[in-house]
């Protein structure tokens, strides 16, 4: 077993060796520009790109013609949101999104707000979910776009995408979903779910970093976008720039593998996730799972450990690569805005750790992590004044803290 153990698969994933194999020839042998229409090198590259389009499309039940390549999900989200807003601004200026979205959705929305758009940011319930009814109530005759992520990156909660998509269809409003965490992990079907625009990225599904795609629906309705990058008119004019052929081939292969193995893999990942979650939570009283208990990504477990600070705990389990919702720095004492949106108290938000199980996680690694986390949380609780006070029956909320 190699240390440190990688358990941060919601952040990024190891590239599958099968993906690397597919990419390599495009660096040194098949290095043509996919836009070169007049020689064999170009044709070869173009063929690889078209194959990748189809591999991606197959995974989400789209057509290859509806796939636009970008540098990753941040660009896909920006292109979708700003592109729709600018193209449809005559129709309306209202956008609906959710407070727990990734910054790559929230920040473009904020920028649009400064440019005169109206943005409604919906709250979530204590599991981190938004409902189609909430969206229905927020809609006005000026609404042009709804953007709701399929699965949350921090807490793994799945939103009811299908009912939101259906609502948007009824109302004639475009529906964008940031499906970065969901694609390749759970079934995503743009037809069945009524999705008009969908962002995905390779590095969350065992592909390379720096390549992503945006699905843009071509009919019923045909979605139009204002390009954010002008130039050679690549990608139906929506995203100019020479295509990253090796990366695109890698993304295509990553999607093909996911498509073929998702059903089996998600079962295995789920089983390991549950083993980890139960193993830790059964042994540690006052540990809490953040997010939805069932409607969540198979590989995600976000757990708060009362009386222990997340960053302090991460240092204790340095042999495990994880993330914390804590932000113990002098610049910002604010813990995760996602956890806060769920109504998780600040002190528990500071105590959270995100575990992400993935394709390459082993049973042995899970056992090791369970033992280590239990040991360290207990050690740090023995060192924690909050734990001591709680043991003594003092209500921590009644204490007059010296905020700083």
């Amino acid at each position, binding site marked *: 077993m190699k240390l440190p153990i990688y358990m941060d698969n919601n952040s990024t994933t190891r590239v599958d060796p099968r993906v690397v194999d597919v990419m390599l020839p495009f660096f040194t042998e098949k290095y043509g520009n996919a836009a070169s229409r007049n020689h064999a090198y170009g044709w070869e590259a173009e063929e690889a790109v078209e194959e990748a389009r189809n591999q991606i499309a197959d995974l989400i039940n789209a057509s290859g013609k509806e796939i636009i390549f970008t540098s990753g999900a941040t660009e896909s989200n920006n292109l979708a949101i700003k592109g729709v807003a600018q193209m449809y601004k005559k129709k309306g200026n209202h956008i609906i999104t959710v407070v727990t979205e990734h910054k790559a959705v929230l920040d473009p929305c904020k920028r649009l707000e400064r440019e005169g758009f109206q943005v409604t940011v919906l709250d979530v319930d204590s599991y981190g979910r938004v409902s189609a009814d909430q969206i229905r109530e927020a809609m006005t005759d000026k609404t042009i776009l709804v953007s709701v992520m399929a699965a949350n990156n921090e807490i793994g909660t799945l939103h009811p995408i299908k009912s939101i998509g259906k609502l948007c269809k009824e109302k004639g409003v475009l529906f964008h979903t940031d499906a970065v965490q969901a694609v390749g992990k759970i079934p995503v079907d743009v037809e069945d779910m009524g999705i008009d625009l969908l962002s995905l990225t390779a590095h969350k599904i065992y592909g390379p970093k720096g390549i992503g795609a945006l699905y843009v629906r071509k009919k019923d309705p045909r979605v139009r976008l204002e390009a954010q990058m002008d130039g050679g008119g690549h990608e139906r004019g929506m995203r100019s720039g020479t295509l990253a052929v090796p990366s695109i081939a890698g993304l295509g292969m990553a999607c093909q593998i996911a498509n073929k193995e998702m059903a089996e893999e998600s079962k295995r990942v789920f089983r390991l996730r549950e083993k980890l979650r139960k193993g830790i939570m059964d042994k540690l009283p006052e540990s809490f799972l953040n997010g939805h208990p069932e409607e969540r990504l198979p590989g995600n477990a976000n757990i708060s450990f009362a*009386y*222990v*600070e997340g*960053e*302090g705990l991460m*240092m*204790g389990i340095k042999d495990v690569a994880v993330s914390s919702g*804590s*932000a*113990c*720095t*002098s*610049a910002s*004492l604010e*813990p995760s805005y996602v956890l806060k949106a769920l109504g998780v*108290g*600040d*002190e528990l938000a*500071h105590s959270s750790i995100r575990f992400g199980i993935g394709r390459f996680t082993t049973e042995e690694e899970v056992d090791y992590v369970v033992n280590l986390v239990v040991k360290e949380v207990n050690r740090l609780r*023995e*060192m*924690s*004044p*909050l*734990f*001591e006070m709680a043991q003594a029956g003092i209500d*921590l909320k009644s204490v007059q*803290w*010296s*905020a*700083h």
Partner: protein
Amino acid sequence: MPYSAQILEHYNNPRNVGSLSQTDPNVGTGLVGAPECGDVMKLQIKVNPATGVIEDAKFKTFGCGSAIASSSLATEWLKGKTVDQALSIRNTEIVEELALPPVKVHCSVLAEDAIKAAIKNFQEKQTNVEASELVAAK
């Protein structure tokens, strides 16, 4: 964030973890920080009332590794010092000793505050003791 060897050493082998009796008139307790800010430090000193020397110091800290290391170091420095000497400990000395990164300077400030709060608590208790002794003498 890369941590210095000094921080790691104190984090892995914290000195003087524990609690002293809060009812002891010779013990001063400082509790600073807040759970919602992500760090709470409890620092205690036991002072010899005759000599004014800190004979024991204990801490408990909820916080990041730098907060734990800062309080651990503070207890080490407090032992053997007089109350007046303890009052002159500055957070910048803790920053230097532990090589705290700039974003963690806050932890050293908290440790300095905890020292001051513990001393203040001890002095208040002593004043009360003297007052009650005076009353008893009369």
